[in-house]
């Protein structure tokens, strides 16, 4: 299958000088794939997100979405419709003061007929579990609910890929769970590609692929199993491994026969119990 998004030797610099925040990134994102991008602030991960739908254009190299280059002005709007983006701050990405009006904003910009917009808004709100809130005011919702409305606003544009730029950074644990579940459902049930950027490793244990960014480069990549077993390297980068995974890793190193790809408490408990 042809990749949905292709990055060929992409570099980016904000001031146009040699100061690259992204360096020679080669990356393909396949249809239906869940790609997680983890790294610290300043590692270049947010810049990468903005390159994916032409909010930024590469200083070097090329970004292609469905075969179209993001540098071509005519195709930019098609690219942005295909690659939707959800940002960090739940407050700063909602435009209208009524939930359904906000979800309608994207489809309205696409110039769709009013009946079509209504149908899409309804469907999108149902998909994120917010249909009972259609007539509510956004500022009265919780952070997790606001983020789900933001996601609905993107889904209503019928994209092929959703890019999430630290969508849970400002949420409490309850909101965080709501958003992660919504993202995972959309990926699994609707077959949408997901690029999920986060600081939190434990949010992406179900991803197909994890890329760890540091200083504009991909320093680690692979399935969660591959990545999480490199506990030492991850610790070196001061990133979080789920606590259970780290415990499993240490137990394994002490000579116990325990798998290294354990991400949940229950599995570790089972693994230890089965040692007898």
């Amino acid at each position, binding site marked *: 299958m042809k990749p949905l998004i292709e990055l060929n030797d992409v570099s980016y610099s904000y001031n146009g000088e040699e100061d690259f925040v992204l360096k020679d990134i080669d990356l393909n994102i396949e249809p239906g794939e869940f790609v997680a991008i983890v790294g*610290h*602030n*300043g590692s270049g991960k947010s810049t990468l997100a903005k390159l994916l739908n032409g909010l930024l254009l590469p200083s070097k190299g090329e970004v292609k979405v469905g075969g179209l280059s993001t540098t071509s002005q005519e195709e930019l709007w098609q690219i942005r419709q295909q690659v939707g983006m959800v940002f960090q701050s739940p407050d700063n990405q909602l435009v209208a003061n009524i939930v359904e009006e906000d979800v309608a904003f994207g489809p309205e910009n696409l110039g769709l007929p009013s009946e079509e917009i209504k149908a899409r808004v309804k469907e999108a709100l149902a998909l994120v579990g917010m249909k009972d809130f259609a007539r509510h005011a956004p500022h009265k919702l*919780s*952070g997790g609910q606001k983020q789900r409305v933001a996601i609905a606003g993107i889904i209503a544009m019928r994209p092929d890929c959703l890019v999430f730029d630290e969508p849970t*950074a*400002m949420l*409490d*644990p*309850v*909101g965080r769970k709501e958003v992660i579940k919504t993202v995972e459902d959309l990926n699994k049930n609707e077959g949408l590609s997901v690029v999920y950027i986060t*600081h939190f490793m434990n949010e992406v244990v179900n991803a197909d692929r994890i890329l760890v960014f540091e200083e504009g480069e991909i320093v680690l990549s692979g399935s969660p199993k591959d990545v999480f077993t490199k506990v030492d390297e991850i610790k070196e980068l*001061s*990133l*979080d491994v*789920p*606590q*259970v995974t*780290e*415990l499993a890793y*240490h*137990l394994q190193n*002490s000579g*116990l026969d325990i798998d290294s790809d354990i991400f949940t*408490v*229950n599995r*570790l*408990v089972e693994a*230890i*119990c089965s*040692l007898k």
Partner: protein
Amino acid sequence: MLIKVESVTHQYDDMGESVLNDINFSINKNEFISLIGHTGSGKSTLVQILNGLIKPISGQVFLSGEDITGKDVDLKKVRQQVGLVFQYPEHQLFEETVYQDVAFGPKNLGLSEETIEDRVKDSLKSVNLEYEEFKDRSPFKLSGGQQRRVAIAGVLAMRPKVLILDEPTAGLDPRTRIELMEEIIKFKEEFNLTIILVSHRMEEVFQLADRILVLSEGQLVFNESPTELTSKYHQLQQLGLGVPEITEVLVNLKEKGYDLNTNIFDILSAKDEIIKVLRS
């Protein structure tokens, strides 16, 4: 006893039910207290009552024996003694230079220029910001982590006895978070502080706190040491809260019949404990 909260109840006018309901607890000097609970459990109301920003509709709060909910209280003095670092404190920065911003609190206290300078120096140092390098820079041109440190230094410069930190690491990347937590532990000793930490991160809370206060729907449901709280693991889970993942592993193993100590909150000790039990 440094702080004593007696049957504090509060509600906001526009809502029918209480946000805080008959809260009682006390805090000793130099304790490290953690306050946990869901959004809307009343945490932020409680911490604002502790430094006199909100006056509860009933009940009393004593600070070093003095009732701060009374009529003729010097609120400025209360706020000097109980420092409050809000969530995302960098959003309150406003001065042209880091020095001026940190000096804002001490200036409001009417201190002399020299004292202010000393305090700014000490406070910046305790959050690992080099005084000479940062004092003349604009706070708005710093990184997120540095801005947060400047904001915390601004509260430290008031030299409070109690420092309340409302999710001080929210939104920071893991590296900055780890550094900031280390700084907090360090300056607690340095300034002889009593700390109240509001946090959602159980691994942090259980490792650091002497005592944990658990709020749920306006009620203080638990007020115990991490060790005692671990034994109430199932009740915590029912509230939608929990213990650190590794402690959860130990608790589960114990319930399956392994004879081990569940009061362990860091990974390496947990590993040792599990190995000890398996080999015995």
